[in-house]
């Protein structure tokens, strides 16, 4: 994965903390997926501003006890998956609906 990539949630996808469920969820038309704690923490940093290496850096600061190489792998794997699921688009891409 290119660490200069900047990702952003696609229009119609929303990340949100659900107090009743006790987890982050991603919401989309007529559906939602519950996220694990680490997936929620990563996606929270996906703001259309930070690139992948910024996100890794931020998370390293938030979770100093985490093994950096594992954290890098977790971020890469999750972002790739989120992109494949159609939750994210690459910011450089021309924005298109859907």
């Amino acid at each position, binding site marked *: 994965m290119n660490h200069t990539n900047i990702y952003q949630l696609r229009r119609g996808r*929303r990340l*949100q903390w659900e107090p009743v469920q006790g987890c982050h969820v991603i*919401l989309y*038309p007529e559906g*939602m997926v519950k996220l694990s704690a680490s997936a929620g923490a990563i996606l929270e940093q996906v703001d259309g501003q930070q690139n992948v290496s910024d996100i890794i850096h931020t998370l390293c600061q938030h979770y100093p006890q985490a093994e950096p190489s594992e954290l890098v792998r977790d971020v890469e794997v999750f972002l790739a998956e989120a992109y494949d699921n159609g939750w994210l688009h690459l910011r450089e891409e021309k924005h298109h609906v*859907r």
Partner: protein
Amino acid sequence: MSADHASVVPSVTPPLWLLAELTYRCPLQCSYCSNPIDFHRYHQELDTQAWCDVLRQGRGLGAAQLGFSGGEPLIRKDLEVLVEEARSLGFYTNLITSGVGLDVKRVNALSAAGLDHIQISLQAADPDLASALAGSKKAHANKLAMARAVKDAGYPMVLNVVIHRQNIDQIGDIIALCDQLGADEVELANCQYYGWAFLNRRQLMPTRDQLKRAEDETRRWRERLQARGRDMTLHFVVPDYYEKQPKPCMGGWGSIFMTVAPDGAVLPCHSARELPMSFPTVNDLTLHDIWYQSDAFNRFRGTAWMPQRCQQCDQHSVDFAGCRCQAYLLTGDMTDTDPVCEFSPHHAALESMVEDAQVIRVLESGAIPRNVHMARQQTSTKDSE
């Protein structure tokens, strides 16, 4: 909430979905409408404040997805206010509309209020057939214009077409129209037989041949679209009368879904009103008490209520013995196995109903339009039976 109640149903989890049926009023008269046949009896609608309260309570319980439907939800002048309230509470807001009553100004107002998603329904590709099916001449052209307006406002264009005997042979034209409109997603939803659709099932049920041809045509269209690099998703939803295992209706009774009807009745699904039981309303009880403690919501939770056949079957955690409304409509017993199941003693009768569709060539009589006049007539014949 008393502890003894909580221990009766320890496994109840919070609802995730709230469907707000804002009104049963509708300018169209679709014969496949799933609204209750006696919808005219529930004309006393919750007002804006009461709906806002319902939204707050539902969100507090944990629901995150919200659908606004009806009837035609656009008839409610306060729709924008309700969308704004829902959005500020953190709901993901979906509007399910026929597009009638929509104009560019309203699309923009809804978008400004924070509406997340709009789904517009079409009846057919051909304007004459569309107006015959919906009982309105102007509706079709307006729908097409609104589908475009929705897309111009930055939403994906998501179209829903209810497929049945009278439009299924035109499925290719329907897909072509959606393609031409620039749709992003098209749901070709075969009619499910509840409410008015159940009443009109003889006119609506396609033959197995028709269904097969429609499925093949949809497949060919998918290939064509893909070859052109056109990103339009086609969902073909098979009617479950033609299946051998029932669908897990609403993900299980009282498990993730609640509907609030226009008059404030709270239902585990939008057609449950057809069942011979009574449902609590938000005028009398809180949504919390209704979800966790009401007899109605607890009635078909778990497996104890199921017939032996389903209790002993390893599929009961997958399909929850099927749909209660379908069991009731087809067997007269709402606690029976859904007759879609091949192990139901009523399955053969359902299959022969499907086979009968084969022999009903032309419509011997037209479908009954869904309107207040016919509702009165239907319910008075029912009452006098």
